[in-house]
């Protein structure tokens, strides 16, 4: 533990490899207390609405549990299902020794100043664990909420799908409606054990001046499946993340999907990196980016380390209304007999497609909206209907905002 703190201290001013540098001194991170709410129903309507935009339903319809953190304080955490644990990480660290087996085991504290900050000045975060063999049918929802102006929220999450379990999580990150500026630093470590299935869908619904620096690392064991979806379609100032996953067991599978819509002035640098370390592992990274005046960098890196792996990367960008898209698809084949491919395309909406739809009776605006929605309509196999519905809702909402 000491070692980690020392390492973190050394890295506390270390600039990140990617993304614009953030002056952490600009943000206040002294704890803000909020009252714990036993019943989510008592939350103010404005909060509920904002949470709903990020896929978190305070009515808990078809949800198997909920975690809500406001600024630095956990205001709600409970599981509705046996075999599913949902708890604040600080409490879990005190109560259970096993948490130490996961805490900072995949992510390094000295990656950059953001990981260092999450180590040295941890607010809280969640531990969500599906016990061996348990099947969590409905998604677990977690909300990380920013309410205090100019606040830096530093969280650390552990997500553990034990052997043979199935777990679906939706994390919604959002702010109070009045909020202008803030910083969100989030460390997430994912453990998908043998033959387990984990889907993790993150919806960001920030505000115009919010900076976001998630740092996540995952490991998938033999026969495991990790489905990682990221949706960000509303204004934000700056997001940079490059989650990494290791496929460390035979036949492990990871699939990353991201849907990005960048509004004017936003700096978005998002990608995924997957290491295929065992035979029979498969990986897929699919991203769709639309810019309306944002600068978007869409990365993807697949590293095939052993023979008999299969991986595909697909990066598509649409420049709708100014801005830039930089697609950086990378493949590293480090052995013979790897099957790896990528496709990338950046451009504007083809006039031919608009006219095709117009000749079926749609106006030019309707045709454009239909094409944009189609562009963001990515089939994600294995995703529960409730989460598909949340993604569709986010797409629909952004559609309205864009047009």
């Amino acid at each position, binding site marked *: 533990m000491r070692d980690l703190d020392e390492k973190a201290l050394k890295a506390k001013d270390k600039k990140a490899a990617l993304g614009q540098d953030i002056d952490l001194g600009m943000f206040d991170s002294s704890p803000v207390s909020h009252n714990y709410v036993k019943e989510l129903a008592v939350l103010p309507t404005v909060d509920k609405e904002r949470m709903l935009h990020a896929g978190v339903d305070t009515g808990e319809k078809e949800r198997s549990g909920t975690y809500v953190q406001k600024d630095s304080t956990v205001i709600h955490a409970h599981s509705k299902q046996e075999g599913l644990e949902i708890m604040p990480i600080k409490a879990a660290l005190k109560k259970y020794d096993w948490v130490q087996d996961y805490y900072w085991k995949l992510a390094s504290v000295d990656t950059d100043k953001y990981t260092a900050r999450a180590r040295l000045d941890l607010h809280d975060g969640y531990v969500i664990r599906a016990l061996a063999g348990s099947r969590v049918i409905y998604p677990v929802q977690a909300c990380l909420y920013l309410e205090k102006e100019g606040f830096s929220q530093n969280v650390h999450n552990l997500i553990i799908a034990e052997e043979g379990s199935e777990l679906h999580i939706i994390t919604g990150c959002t702010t109070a409606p009045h909020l202008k500026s803030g910083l969100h630093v989030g460390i997430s470590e994912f453990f998908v054990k043998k033959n387990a299935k984990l889907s993790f869908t993150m919806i960001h619904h920030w505000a115009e001046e919010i900076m976001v620096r998630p740092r996540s690392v995952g490991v998938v064991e033999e026969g495991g499946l990790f489905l990682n979806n990221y949706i960000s379609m509303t204004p934000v100032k700056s997001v940079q993340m490059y989650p990494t996953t290791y496929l460390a067991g035979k036949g492990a599978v990871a699939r990353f999907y991201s849907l990005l819509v960048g509004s004017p002035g936003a700096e978005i640098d998002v990608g995924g990196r997957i290491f295929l370390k065992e035979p029979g592992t498969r990986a897929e990274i699919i991203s769709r980016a639309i810019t309306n005046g944002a600068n978007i960098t869409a990365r993807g890196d697949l590293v095939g380390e052993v023979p008999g792996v299969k991986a595909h990367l697909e990066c598509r960008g649409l420049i709708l209304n100014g801005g830039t898209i930089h697609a950086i698809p990378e493949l590293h084949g480090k052995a013979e007999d790897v099957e790896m491919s990528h496709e990338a395309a950046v451009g504007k909406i*083809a006039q031919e497609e608009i006219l095709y739809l*117009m*000749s*079926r*009776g749609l106006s030019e605006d309707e045709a454009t909206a*239909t*094409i944009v929605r189609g562009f*963001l309509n990515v089939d994600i196999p294995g995703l529960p209907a409730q989460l598909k519905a949340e993604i569709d809702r986010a797409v629909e909402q952004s559609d309205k905002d864009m047009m």
Partner: protein
Amino acid sequence: MLQVEDLQVKIDDKEILKHINLTINPGETHILFGPNGSGKTSLLMTLMGYPQYRITGGRILFKGEDITNMPVNERAQLGIGISYQRPPTINGVKTRQMVEICAAGKIDAAALAKRVNFSDFLDRDINAGFSGGEIKRSELLQLTAQDADLFLFDEPESGVDLENISLIGGTIRQLLQRDFKVNTRKSRKELHNERTKMGLIITHTGFILDYLTADKGQVLYNGVLTCASNPREIFQCISEVGYGECVKCAI
């Protein structure tokens, strides 16, 4: 009724349609012949309103309305429908959605798809990886849903295997109200007289003539409509002596 009067069209600065005059009366179907590059597709796209086909002279009237400068979607709403030869793929837009857009809420897509043996394609992205025959069936499905009054067909039989060509021929026959099998209570003459749908069909092979009757054949040669006659006669003539004969009339 479709009336094309002295229509002149350019793409960029190249003249591609020269002084076209063409009338299609309600209930009439015309076949459009012509060698590659003669301007057949350009004529269809101009009638549909594609902006890159710049009208430099003449006008187009449809149902008595001057549509020369009307946008594509308004023409579609007025009752013009087109079956493309090579329509674009639109990622994420399902065939079902296209049919629903065409039907504008009037018709059930699933039931319709069954008729053209296309149910399996409803949940696929439109035109993505479709074979020649699948594209044609998808296009016809959309046109059936749209229920236009003037149908423009760009080589409906190209790239279609023998098994599907009769399905496609039969569907076009129905669209153009030329299927005498559908209603047994009325005499064929009555059916003929009640016919209102108009068609303009581009064909290279003439195969389509085996599946439906047409009132007139038109030959487009180098941007000029050179002759209008019985479609079978034109087809026979082209088959025997080629389009060389058309040169004489084009000058």
